[in-house]
């Protein structure tokens, strides 16, 4: 279970998060929605322990991650899978080696076993035959799917998705969302997803939190968010030009 308590974070004097609190139950997926630059990715990085809060706590299974020693934090992180916005693949490694990397470096597994697991992960994301290609030789959608395979290959308990469909064409974006859904069904991970693909993401999450100007404005089921009468939520969900959200 993920619990965020009263999280504050500033960058160069600019306060991005102003007291965020929320909770994601075991096996549940939470969608974080909100305008660009409102701190959604910053929350994800706090959950992963990549950023240290100015104030507040992030608890994973009731353990405050910043109370852990570095080695313990590294061990905790191995329970995470993180799909980065850019994919964050290692450019000097092939698709196969990128997916195999966490297994080779963190698990005591035979090369044969690694090969089997990597090929299964690549098969799941529809990337059979691309294993010898380098990131520079594949499309944006394939990069995202490779990154998804890499984050799943270690069977993570917690998955964090940072805009998994940004920059992809609608068909590929749909494929990625379906993949996340089917993998969630298969593995039952706890997840947080940051996305602007509201209609598709709402089909696979149990809870949605709307972030606005550093605070969680409202939180509820996808149906509750869709029917919300809050003018900010309404404008964001419908994409209306007129409303209280200031374009910056």
């Amino acid at each position, binding site marked *: 279970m993920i619990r965020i308590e009263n999280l504050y974070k500033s960058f160069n004097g600019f306060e991005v998060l102003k007291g965020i609190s929320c909770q994601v139950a075991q096996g549940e997926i939470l969608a974080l929605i909100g305008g660009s630059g409102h701190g959604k990715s910053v929350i994800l990085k706090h959950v992963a322990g990549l950023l240290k809060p100015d104030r507040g706590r992030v608890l994973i299974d009731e353990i405050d991650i910043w109370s852990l020693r570095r080695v313990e934090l590294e061990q905790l992180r191995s329970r995470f899978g993180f799909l980065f916005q*850019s994919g964050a693949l290692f450019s000097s490694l092939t698709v196969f080696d990128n997916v195999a990397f966490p297994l080779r470096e963190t698990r005591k597994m035979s090369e044969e076993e690694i090969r089997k697991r990597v090929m299964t992960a690549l098969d799941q994301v529809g990337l059979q035959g691309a294993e010898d290609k380098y990131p520079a030789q594949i499309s944006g959608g394939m990069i995202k799917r490779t990154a998804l395979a890499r984050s799943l290959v270690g069977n993570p308990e917690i998955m964090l998705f940072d805009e998994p469909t940004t920059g992809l064409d609608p068909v590929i974006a749909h494929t990625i969302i379906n993949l996340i859904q089917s993998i969630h069904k298969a593995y039952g991970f706890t997840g947080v997803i940051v996305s602007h693909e509201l209609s598709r993401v709402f089909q696979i999450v149990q809870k949605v939190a709307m972030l606005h100007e550093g605070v969680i404005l409202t939180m509820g089921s996808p149906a509750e968010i869709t029917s919300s009468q809050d003018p900010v939520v309404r404008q964001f969900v419908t994409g209306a030009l007129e409303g209280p959200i200031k374009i910056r």
Partner: protein
Amino acid sequence: MFILRRMGRMGLFFAKTWYYLFRPPLKMSWVIKQIWFIGTQSTLVIFLTGAFTGMVLGLQGYYTLNRFGSTALLGPMVALSLIRELGPVLSALMVTGRAGSAMTAEIGIMRISEQIDALELMGLNPYRYLVVPKLVAGMISLPLLTAIFDVVGIFGGYLIGVNLLDVGTGTYFGEMANYLDLEDVLAGVYKSFSFGILITWTCSYKGYYAGFGAEGVSKATTQAVVLSSVLILFWDYVMTSALF
């Protein structure tokens, strides 16, 4: 205050790198890859720089010594200048330009494209994978590159002094053996070893804390080359005062 904070962060980066250097496992395959990149791939540029530096020293040395009627000392003059000073310093400056800038750009791009975050998320320490192998490779490669520079430079001086001017082969090498001590060679080795640390530390640090976007990486790369070059010259002065 700002400068003090930056210096503190750089010092902390250095301390962390050494901490992970002595905490096994050392990623040998990554070290070898870096030796190939920093060392082997710099050989040609070191060879060319060494040759021309030696040739210039031969030429300038001959005309200067000729004024005092002591052209017989051309060999020791070329060798001592190269081994004690020019070899370590010029090799380090060339490696900074060729490999140091690439080091900063590589780590900087990994930083802005979230590859360093990805490493951390896998429970892997970026220092162990990205910085320590470069440090070890720098400590091994720089003394070897400097040795190549020195040898090629001495033969460059020989080419000019013996083949073009009228210094005898026996005089060139014989006097060199008389005037050159083991201490001189060791001083060159110490210098190049410390320059290896200096270059990899500065360039990795600048990449690790590169700013946002392409502009951030390009600024970091420029700063790394400038800072590393200035530190090499400063440290060279410190070591020269301490060693001789």
